[in-house]
């Protein structure tokens, strides 16, 4: 092991013969109305290796937990099976009971007889009971073969590297610094602020984007715990939780390195770039994207809306350009995929802009061509209502009947098969066409491939679980802030940045951090040194061949191993296993399940 990595001190209560306690939960009546819990407990009490089997109305209550503690004390129970709800809810609860009672917490097995039994077999009480018995028996087989495990502890740099200096990155750095951590912002552009640098008056606050950026930037620059590098060209990201290394070049080619315990990915998004000829973009004059139009409007005085030296008296907004694309209707992106996701912020952004045009240039006619208006968010529907009151005319088309723009020197002709008038073909003239373009992820392919970061089907960075582990990447110690995860407005982006920084703060609260020990382990006595397993491993440095005591063996770096088990399957002598999830356990479970 690396000198920075050590095992937590272990509790030596496992060398004793396994004595399993089995606890069947009624979950009020959620389980016991369907499953005959008495029968399950009775059957389990006769099962080899089981010292005691009980049933109880609520195992998760403090009385239920005390039952286990008492059995540990009085009967010498040293392994437990709790058959109850899903482990996602209470696995950790019962691990905690064991730990407090002086038993290694990993000698617990949680069996699901609610979500995957009583709730789905309501009409088959006998079948559900038979299944509960088998599942609990398989749990006993598994827990009997479990080894005590100890969280791996890794010494950590007390520093957060924030990649991207938009509002999310700045917010994340400020939150991290507020928790006493050092933060380093690495921004590839020349300025902090990201996409807000080009935006105008923002919804929902009505503040100017430049003012929002300035406020954040002033705070960042004043904070001694935050270092900012702009024009930073990142060329390497490596290492693992607690010990990441990021190399970057500054203008002039000077190389620098940041070491960090955690990384926040705040790399944001790019505007969808319409292809040449998409609704006339890049071919006809007077076709712009919404961000281009917003930049333009910022510079123009009130009174006369002008573009290319000509007054604009009418304007068409076309929604969903580059978003919610349909297979067979839209041209695929460079990677062959279509952007079938909704870019979320563009509806409100477009309508907010329409209202601002009406305010600044009341005479301009605005036609809004949309598929669905999705002004999600608190009170955002009021922008739509306001636009209707302001006289913006709305046209709605279906996903397959796209609007058609034809252009000549006099302007544009827009044709829409309008759902609002029961499919009538409507046509109008517009001096300017504004394409409400979607959001696509920033190109961070180098960092993503070096760190093997997962992305969703939409190519944005993907969190592990929406509810259970939000803003966490599967890579331990890396968190996502803002629009790098999916299209979101700046309020949402800053909220997610706060979450990311909090998670980094929790992770780095102690000088060394505990990791779940579910990583590959090698039985050096069984390892023949064949060398097949490293080739199966996708994580650089996680599994290598090394000389140990004069013998070539496979060696795992537990801080880099993700515990997928790809190596396990190719090891003929079964010398390698994922701790806590061994093949021997699974063979025994299947045996127990299959037995008549």
């Amino acid at each position, binding site marked *: 092991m690396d000198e920075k990595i050590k095992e937590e001190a272990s509790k030596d209560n496992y060398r004793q013969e396994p004595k399993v306690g089995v606890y069947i939960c009624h979950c009020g009546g959620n389980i016991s109305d369907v499953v005959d819990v008495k029968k399950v407990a009775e059957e389990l009490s006769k099962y080899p290796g089981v010292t005691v089997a009980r049933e109880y109305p609520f195992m998760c209550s403090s009385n239920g937990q005390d039952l286990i503690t008492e059995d540990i004390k009085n009967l010498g129970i040293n392994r437990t099976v709790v058959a109850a709800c899903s482990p996602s809810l209470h696995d950790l609860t019962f691990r905690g009971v064991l730990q407090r009672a002086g038993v290694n917490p990993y000698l617990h097995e949680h069996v699901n007889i*609610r979500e*995957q039994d009583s*709730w789905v077999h*309501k*009409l*088959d009480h006998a079948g559900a009971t038979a299944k509960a018995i088998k599942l609990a028996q398989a749990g006993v087989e598994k827990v009997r073969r479990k080894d005590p495990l100890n969280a791996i502890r890794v010494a950590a740099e007390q520093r957060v590297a924030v990649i991207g200096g938009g509002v999310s990155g700045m917010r994340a750095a400020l939150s991290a610094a507020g928790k006493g951590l050092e933060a380093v912002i690495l921004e590839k552009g020349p300025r902090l602020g990201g996409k807000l640098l080009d935006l105008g008056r923002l919804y929902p606050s009505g503040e100017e984007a430049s003012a929002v950026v300035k406020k954040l930037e002033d705070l960042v620059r004043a904070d001694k715990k935050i270092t900012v590098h702009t024009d930073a060209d990142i060329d390497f990201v490596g290492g693992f939780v607690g010990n990441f290394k990021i190399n970057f070049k500054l203008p002039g080619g000077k190389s620098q390195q940041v070491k960090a315990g955690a990384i926040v990915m705040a790399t944001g998004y790019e505007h969808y770039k319409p292809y040449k000829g998409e609704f006339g973009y890049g071919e006809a004059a007077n076709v712009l994207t919404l961000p281009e139009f917003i930049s333009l409007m910022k510079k123009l005085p009130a009174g006369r809306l002008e573009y290319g030296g000509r007054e604009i008296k009418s304007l068409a907004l076309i929604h969903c350009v580059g978003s919610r694309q349909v297979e067979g209707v839209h041209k695929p992106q460079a990677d062959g995929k279509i952007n079938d996701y909704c870019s979320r912020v563009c509806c409100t952004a477009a309508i907010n802009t329409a209202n601002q045009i009406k305010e600044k240039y009341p005479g301009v006619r605005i036609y809004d061509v949309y598929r669905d208006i999705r002004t999600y968010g608190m009170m955002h529907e009021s922008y739509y209502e306001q636009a209707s009151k302001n006289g913006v005319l709305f046209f709605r088309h279906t996903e397959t009947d796209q609007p058609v723009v034809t252009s000549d020197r006099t302007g544009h002709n827009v044709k829409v098969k309008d759902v609002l008038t029961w499919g009538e073909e409507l046509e109008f003239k517009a001096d300017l066409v504004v394409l409400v373009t979607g959001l696509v992820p920033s190109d961070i392919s180098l960092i993503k491939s070096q760190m093997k970061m997962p992305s969703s089907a939409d190519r944005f960075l993907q969190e592990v679980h929406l509810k259970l582990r939000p803003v966490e990447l*599967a890579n331990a110690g890396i968190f996502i802030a803002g629009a790098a995860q999916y299209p979101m407005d700046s309020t949402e982006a800053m909220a997610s940045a706060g979450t990311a920084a909090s998670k980094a703060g929790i992770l780095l609260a102690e000088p060394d951090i505990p990791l779940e020990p579910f990583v590959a382990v090698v039985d050096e006595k069984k390892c023949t040194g064949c060398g097949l397993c490293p080739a199966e491993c*996708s994580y650089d440095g996680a599994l290598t061949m090394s000389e140990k005591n004069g013998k070539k063996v496979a060696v795992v770096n537990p801080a880099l191993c993700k515990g997928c088990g790809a190596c396990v399957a190719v090891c003929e002598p079964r010398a390698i296993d994922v701790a806590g*999830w061994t093949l021997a356990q699974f063979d025994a479970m*299947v045996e127990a399940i299959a037995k008549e």
Partner: protein
Amino acid sequence: MPPNKKKILIITTNHSSYPGADAVGQARLAYEANTYIIRVPDPVMFPEDFYLGAFDKGIGGIIIMSSGSDCPYEGAYERLSKRVARVYEKMKARGIKADRLKLTTICTVCRAAFLKEISEMEKAVAAA
């Protein structure tokens, strides 16, 4: 459940299909009780003989519910599908019908797909 109905082993992933199976329960949807769900970090860990061994032990059918493109582990799905292809070859050699093993992808909210896979496997197991 008739007493001697063949059992179906369902291999799920901690990240994706196990929560998917929970979602089916949370929605109180129903399927048959001869189904036994086990969970793993990733089914890529099972060697070919694990599946063959399960059939030998008397398991009627096996559904591997992987995380597919949501898989948090690099390259694991590709390795798994290659391995399953080899298991099919070995099953053929032993005269085990191919439809008794199925590799599929189930997400955390794929309730309909989960039920469909089970009902198809029920048919395959009943016919075997």
